[in-house]
């Protein structure tokens, strides 16, 4: 290779490694949870245990559904209704837009959404039954982190795209020959390298599709910004041209009598054989130009996405517009294809199973990539402190990635055992079972500092808990998977069978797992070497630099002042006639408010003072952990402020300074750590 060619190769290699390592844990969680998100509705059906009668559920009585909504005291006049047809959950999703009626003075501008049972036609709140499937699905785009979670997932997707493309570039010349290369008896690192390359190539189209579609699904705002400029801010024109299913119609006059909404669907299905509705819109409810619109797919295997639409005028019962399913339309096709590729809803359960397996293969590619990174760094030329840090990254990564399997299985069992009377607390119980228990499991494995141990016991626990899932389900409900199969209840049986297959795979992997040679040097030896390293480093420093505790104390103080400033900036709106009172203020300060104050300013002050007096390892770790959480919070706070109040300049600057303080604080803690290692007792 030429010199610049060599440099470029290193650049691509570095980009691939760094982008891959930075997103590794998040990406693993996304693919693992994403695999289960494919069957989230089946999981809900499995949890409820009620038989699934899909044909009957799909045969919606629209008039009856509207009647139950009216009985529940919703005023529908002038609203647009968006309806998602039922899946295995057997519930019809309704979303009511705000009313377009400008004649009423006391307008209800709220948007409502809820479910209507597809058999009983009873209303229930969206989260009336919080399913473990919903939790896992939401985790696959980090929706549990408010506001910024989905963007975080979006950037993970973006860097995944980068890692894929740079990975292909570095392997390009050898992509065919390396694919057949498998050297299981060679060094550990080459095994991981071969597995990473071979499985990475097999999964390449799948991974590329997911990286690209996720960019759009999580960060469509980046497409909308230039698009808005092209349309000079005319959003309704843009929507009409780019997403014709969103076309709105100006509200007419109130209709004398409202015609029936039934019958249109049958007509569409007679018109297009094999048509499966996906979304129904009822526009301008109650007006003389009320519209019934249905969007869906023709599910024959001739065409990949045969998307069709029929728009009816309810009063005259005439078809006023349509998009034929077998007519390709680029404008509508792109987004439909993006969604179809991502959600895998165009090929039945066969396709979903293929997607599921490919997602788990991707999880393995991610793990093998990190293991290459780790083994490549077990070298004498790397400083002991750096090696300890690398190993720590590995322990944390393996702990999180491996324990998510048994923890998910455990949460599934919990979800199946919660009785229906406790529906209201399902979400809290499931958060406890998944996130809190999960945290303890991760911490336990991380401090075991043994990746082989973590892998072995996670797989074992996952396999055992996974086999308990069908057992618990059968005992609780009698829905044994063989009876479900016999009754043709595929949706319910599928969940049990997925877990049994996972257990079988895990047990097979366990039988092949060999105990590796212990790492040389051991953790303790490295710690001793690190102490040596720090002694040398600190004696080389000038005297004044040594006492980090004063620096840390001042930084904590600065942090506390920052919070106070931030609180004051919040009040400045008063000068410009902003109301001080919160909307639901009762005259009493809620407890949560005090807790935030104590947690932010109080803790910063306390740690600032304690830092001057205390010199103990436990204090160091407590304060350091707090500093990291504090730093994450500051970054989050800055990000949300940038998103939601970008005009509040002084506040954004104050928050940016807070982030800088946090960075310095964490760096100062690392330095203090060196001092404490060198001189444990003063």
């Amino acid at each position, binding site marked *: 290779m030429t010199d610049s060619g060599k440099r470029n190769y290193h650049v691509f290699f570095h980009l691939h490694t760094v982008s891959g390592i930075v997103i590794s844990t998040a990406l693993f969680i996304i693919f693992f949870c994403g695999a289960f998100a494919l069957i989230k509705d089946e999981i809900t059906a499995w949890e409820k245990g009620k038989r699934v009668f899909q044909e009957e559920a799909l045969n919606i009585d629209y008039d009856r559904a509207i009647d139950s909504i009216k009985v529940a005291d919703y005023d529908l006049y002038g609203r647009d209704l968006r309806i998602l047809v039922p899946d295995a959950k057997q519930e019809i999703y309704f979303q009511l837009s705000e009313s377009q009626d400008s004649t009423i003075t006391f307008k209800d501008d709220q948007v409502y959404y809820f479910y209507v049972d597809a058999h009983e036609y009873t209303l229930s709140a969206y989260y009336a039954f919080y399913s473990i499937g919903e939790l896992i699905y939401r985790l696959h785009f980090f929706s549990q982190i408010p506001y910024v979670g989905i963007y975080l997932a979006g950037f993970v997707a973006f860097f995944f795209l980068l890692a894929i493309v*740079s990975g292909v570039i570095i392997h390009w010349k050898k992509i065919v020959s390396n694919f057949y290369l498998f050297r299981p008896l060679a060094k550990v690192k080459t095994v991981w390298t071969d597995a990473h390359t071979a499985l990475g190539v097999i999964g390449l189209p799948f991974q590329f599709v997911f990286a690209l579609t996720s960019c759009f699904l999580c960060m469509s705002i980046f497409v909308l910004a230039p698009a808005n400029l092209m349309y000079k801010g005319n959003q309704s024109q843009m929507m009409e041209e780019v997403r014709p299913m969103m076309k709105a119609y100006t509200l007419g006059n109130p209709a004398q009598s409202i015609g029936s909404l039934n019958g249109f669907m049958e007509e569409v299905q007679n018109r297009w054989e094999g048509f499966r509705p996906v979304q129904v819109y009822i526009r301008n409810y109650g007006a003389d130009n009320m519209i019934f619109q249905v969007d869906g797919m023709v599910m024959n295997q001739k065409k990949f996405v045969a998307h069709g639409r029929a728009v009816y005028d309810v009063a005259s019962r005439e078809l006023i517009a349509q998009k034929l399913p077998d007519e390709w339309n680029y404008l509508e096709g792109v987004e439909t294809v993006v969604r179809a590729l991502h959600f895998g809803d165009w090929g039945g359960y066969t396709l979903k199973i293929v997607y599921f397996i490919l997602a788990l293969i991707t999880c393995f590619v991610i793990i093998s990539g990190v293991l290459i990174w780790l083994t490549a760094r077990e070298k004498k030329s790397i400083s002991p402190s750096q090696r300890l840090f690398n190993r720590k990254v590995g322990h944390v990564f393996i702990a999180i990635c491996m324990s998510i399997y048994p923890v998910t299985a455990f949460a599934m069992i919990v979800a199946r055992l919660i009785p229906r009377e406790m529906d209201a607390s399902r979400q809290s119980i499931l958060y406890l079972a998944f996130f809190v228990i999960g945290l303890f499991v991760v911490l336990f494995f991380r401090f075991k500092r043994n990746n082989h141990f973590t892998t072995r016991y996670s797989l074992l626990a996952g396999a055992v808990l996974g086999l308990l899932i069908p057992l618990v389900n059968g005992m609780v409900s009698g829905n044994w998977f063989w009876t479900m199969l016999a009754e043709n209840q595929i949706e319910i049986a599928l969940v049990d069978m997925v877990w049994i297959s996972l257990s079988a795979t895990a047990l097979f992997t366990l039988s092949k797992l060999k105990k590796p040679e212990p790492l040389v040097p051991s953790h303790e030896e490295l710690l001793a070497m690190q102490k040596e390293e720090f002694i040398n480093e600190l004696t080389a420093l000038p005297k004044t630099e040594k006492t980090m505790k004063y620096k840390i104390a001042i930084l904590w103080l600065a942090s506390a002042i920052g919070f106070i400033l931030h609180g004051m900036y919040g009040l400045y709106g008063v000068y410009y006639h902003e109301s001080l009172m919160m909307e639901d203020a009762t005259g009493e300060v809620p407890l949560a408010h005090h807790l935030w104050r104590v947690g932010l300013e109080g803790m910063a002050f306390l740690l600032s003072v304690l830092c001057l007096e205390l010199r103990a390892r436990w204090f160091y770790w407590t304060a350091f952990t707090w500093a990291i959480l504090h730093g994450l919070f500051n970054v989050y706070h800055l990000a949300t402020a940038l998103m939601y109040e970008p005009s509040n300049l002084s506040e954004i600057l104050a928050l940016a300074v807070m982030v800088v303080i946090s960075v310095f604080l964490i760096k100062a803690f690392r330095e203090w750590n060196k001092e404490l290692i060198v001189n444990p007792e003063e």
Partner: protein
Amino acid sequence: MPANSKHLSSPEQRFAKLSAGLLGGYLLSATLHYVLGIWLGNPAYVVVTSIYSLYLVWMLLFIVPYLFTNGWKAWAYYLGIMLALLLLSTL
């Protein structure tokens, strides 16, 4: 094999390249699509295409600054191209 450290850059250069790739790359990709939409006079097709092409172009433009030894030079090129495109689109 960890990348050879002689090919790695200083923190300042790293910041220049990262910001040029992430921020500059996006702005250039968005400008490119915007100008194309204005030129072709048919924004709908460009907007729909940008559903995938915006991120692909952005990703490629993320890589480019790392091929420069000086990341600020990448910023200069990006800003220059953006300005030229915007000027051309007003003609």
